[in-house]
């Protein structure tokens, strides 16, 4: 669980005659993580694809382009098909269905383009309606130049000056003055210059016939009929998508599998008559791989397992051992958080289990409210049905497990949508004399009561109202304690990791002093608070020893530069208390606002809950809902981000990813989603 699965290095060598059945078997088993041959040895060359590799990839490209026209995306499968059905339908999909889809799609694109052209023509012509000319008057001259456009001021006089024989038509609409000038071609240059002085901006007149209004009407009619044609075409594509979606995804998967198999030899080493495959396989599956391949190849193959020393030499030569993370189902969602950071290296620890233990507790301790916890749970149950991709499912599971802890801590803190004490006051269950007695004894942890159960736990600490002074002080202590525990687990794993890599100096003089420093630093603080000088002395002594060890470590005196970081690591855990305080404070404020400000104010100064008027109660509950909703949104986000930080920054730095990330185990083969297994 805490370590990746143990791997063995194997070499599979065989006659080329049995290459296809061996590939088929390897693909089916999904066990061998192939190490690609890089062509470095002169005795072996790179393998060549077998079978119809080219044909398959061409089909795949065609299929994907059709699927793109149909807007088919990866989704959770509704139906799965057997291979035989896909093979029999592949031709239809690629040819008749494919051609139909392509031509329909192209027609839609053409319609859209035509509509746009016609729309542009209408927009260009519309201003021309104010001029007393037909559209065919604007073109078809040999000796005349035509200028049509908007101008800033009247041009008649100036045009007549440079070109007396020209004819000018003008009209004004509310936005601009429109002018059409017909001038002899010989004077076109002068006329253009004059027009430019008047801020001329050309309109390109479409080459159509008849009056402007009738031309616009015709174009609008054409647009309408084109759009009438587009509707059914779009509908047709949608229907086809509905009909063929799963089939297309299955065919895509089938072709991907075939291409993968056909191109597999590219990763192998080859001689004239033989092939060699290098790879890693989980040690537990070694026997299965060996016997299955040998029976598939009918004995014409040799599967050899390298012993640990040989494998170690290869790793030192730069080969990566793939990491196969293996966790029980309940821990698996938390692998998402590990992966987000890095894949563990083969010799490192997989922290998913630790995240599973600590993350939900942190989340619960921060959120700590039965009401919010239940609401989160309900929302997530709904979301879980809606978002069915693996990534979302993992994320939802993470928060779901965490919200169970939020409910548990809610019970400890006595909070249901804010501190229970306040609710107790509202529903009239608060025994005032008891609070006074507790306050007098210095044991006041808040006003919460569990109905007839009263106060529970040692010294009546539970429910612990987080806003009460004693509770805050106690939670500061608890937070730091959790911090020491969390960091210590990290440090211990760090020591073991360094020993796995054979780095004794790093283990004993870099990781160990950090563990000692953090544990005894907190003991020293505890000693100071309790006034216990023995504890202070012991703490101080071990801290000095750990500092000396750091100086003796691989970084020398520079190692001491990290000491402030180790102190801030511990203080950082105060956020477990702090973020929670902020959220419970807002919840408290919401309740206070509704029950002690808005409701009494709107009921004309009534102070007893029985005297509140109905409208006052409605407004009060409205305000209550809005503020609690906002608080809950914030209250899910920060309890997620901050524990994440505590893991990434405070814990992972002690042991994780110091040797660079690993390579994930991805065995040769394909997970069948749309095809029947």
């Amino acid at each position, binding site marked *: 669980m805490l370590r990746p699965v143990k791997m063995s290095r194997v070499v599979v060598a065989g006659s080329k005659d049995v290459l296809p059945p061996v590939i088929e078997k390897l693909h089916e088993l999904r066990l061998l993580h192939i190490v690609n041959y890089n062509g470095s040895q002169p005795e072996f060359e790179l393998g060549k694809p077998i079978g119809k590799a080219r044909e398959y990839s061409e089909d795949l490209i065609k299929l994907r382009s059709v699927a793109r026209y149909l807007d088919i995306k990866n989704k959770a499968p509704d139906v799965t098909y057997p291979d035989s059905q896909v093979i029999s339908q592949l031709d239809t999909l690629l040819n008749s269905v494919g051609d139909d889809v392509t031509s329909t799609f192209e027609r839609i694109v053409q319609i859209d383009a035509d509509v746009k052209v016609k729309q542009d023509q209408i927009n260009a012509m519309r201003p021309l309606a104010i001029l007393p000319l037909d559209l065919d008057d604007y073109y078809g001259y040999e000796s005349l130049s035509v200028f049509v456009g908007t101008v800033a001021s009247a041009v008649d006089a100036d045009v007549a000056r440079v070109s007396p024989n020209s004819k000018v038509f003008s009209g004004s609409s509310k936005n601009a003055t429109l002018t059409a000038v017909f001038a002899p071609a010989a004077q076109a240059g002068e006329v253009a210059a004059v027009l430019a002085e008047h801020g001329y901006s050309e309109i390109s007149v479409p080459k159509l016939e008849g009056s402007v209004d009738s031309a616009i009407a015709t174009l609008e009619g054409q647009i309408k009929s084109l759009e009438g044609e587009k509707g059914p075409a779009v509908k047709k594509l949608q229907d086809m998508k509905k009909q063929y979606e799963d089939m297309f995804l299955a065919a895509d998967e089938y072709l991907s599998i075939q291409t993968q198999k056909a191109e597999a030899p590219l990763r192998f080493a080859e001689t004239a008559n033989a092939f060699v495959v290098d790879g890693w396989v989980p040690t537990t599956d070694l026997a299965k791989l060996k016997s299955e391949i040998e029976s598939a190849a009918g004995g014409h193959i040799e599967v050899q397992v390298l012993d640990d020393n040989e494998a170690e030499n290869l790793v030192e030569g730069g080969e990566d051992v793939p990491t196969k993370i293996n966790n029980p189902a309940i821990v698996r969602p938390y692998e998402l958080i590990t992966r*987000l950071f890095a894949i563990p290296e083969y010799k490192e620890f997989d922290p998913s289990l630790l995240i599973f233990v600590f993350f939900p507790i942190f989340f619960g301790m921060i959120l700590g409210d039965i009401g919010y916890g239940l609401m989160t749970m309900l929302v997530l149950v709904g979301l879980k049905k809606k978002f069915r991709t693996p990534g979302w499912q993992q994320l939802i599971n993470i928060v779901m497990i965490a919200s169970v802890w939020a409910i548990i801590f809610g019970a400890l803190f006595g909070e249901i949508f804010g501190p229970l004490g306040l609710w107790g006051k509202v529903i009239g269950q608060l025994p005032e004399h008891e609070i006074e007695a507790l306050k007098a004894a210095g044991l006041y942890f808040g006003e919460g009561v569990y109905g007839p159960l009263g106060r529970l736990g040692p010294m009546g600490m539970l429910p612990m109202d987080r806003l009460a002074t004693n509770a*805050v*002080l106690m939670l500061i202590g608890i937070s730091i304690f959790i911090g020491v525990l969390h960091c210590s687990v990290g440090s211990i794993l760090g020591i073991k990791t360094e020993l796995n890599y054979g780095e004794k100096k790093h283990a004993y003089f870099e990781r160990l002093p950090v563990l000692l420093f953090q544990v005894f630093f907190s003991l020293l603080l505890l000693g100071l608070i309790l006034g216990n000088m023995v504890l202070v002395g012991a703490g101080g002594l071990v801290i000095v020893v750990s500092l000396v060890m750091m100086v003796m470590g691989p970084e020398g005196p520079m190692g001491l530069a990290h000491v402030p970081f180790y102190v801030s690591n511990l203080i950082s855990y105060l956020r477990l208390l*702090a973020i929670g305080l902020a959220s419970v404070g807002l919840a408290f404020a919401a309740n206070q606002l509704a029950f002690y400000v808005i409701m009494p104010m709107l009921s004309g100064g009534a102070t007893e809950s029985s005297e509140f008027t109905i409208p006052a109660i409605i407004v009060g509950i409205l305000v209550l809902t809005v503020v609690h909703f906002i608080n809950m949104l914030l209250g899910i986000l920060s309890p997620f981000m901050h524990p*994440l*930080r505590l893991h990434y920054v405070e814990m992972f730095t002690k042991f994780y990813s110091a040797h660079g990330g690993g390579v994930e185990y991805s065995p040769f083969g394909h997970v069948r989603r749309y095809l029947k297994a």
Partner: protein
Amino acid sequence: MVVGAINDGGILYGLLAVGAGLATGLAGIGAGVGEQGIGAAVVGVVAEEPGFLGKGLFLMLLPETLIIFGLAVSLILMFAWTPFA
């Protein structure tokens, strides 16, 4: 008068509260200034290479401890240090 005011618990408590507020607030500004550059850079990196999200988050959350220091000071001022209790 000044001595009288300082000896009066009310004003002292008020000053404590102001101090606690400043400690958290100024530390918050500091953390924000620290995070702004890192945040921009991380968004840039993640846009190019989504796999860096985890490491980017790690870097981005580093300066956040600053505000916890401020908060620790505030908590001590408000809850643990009570000279007039």
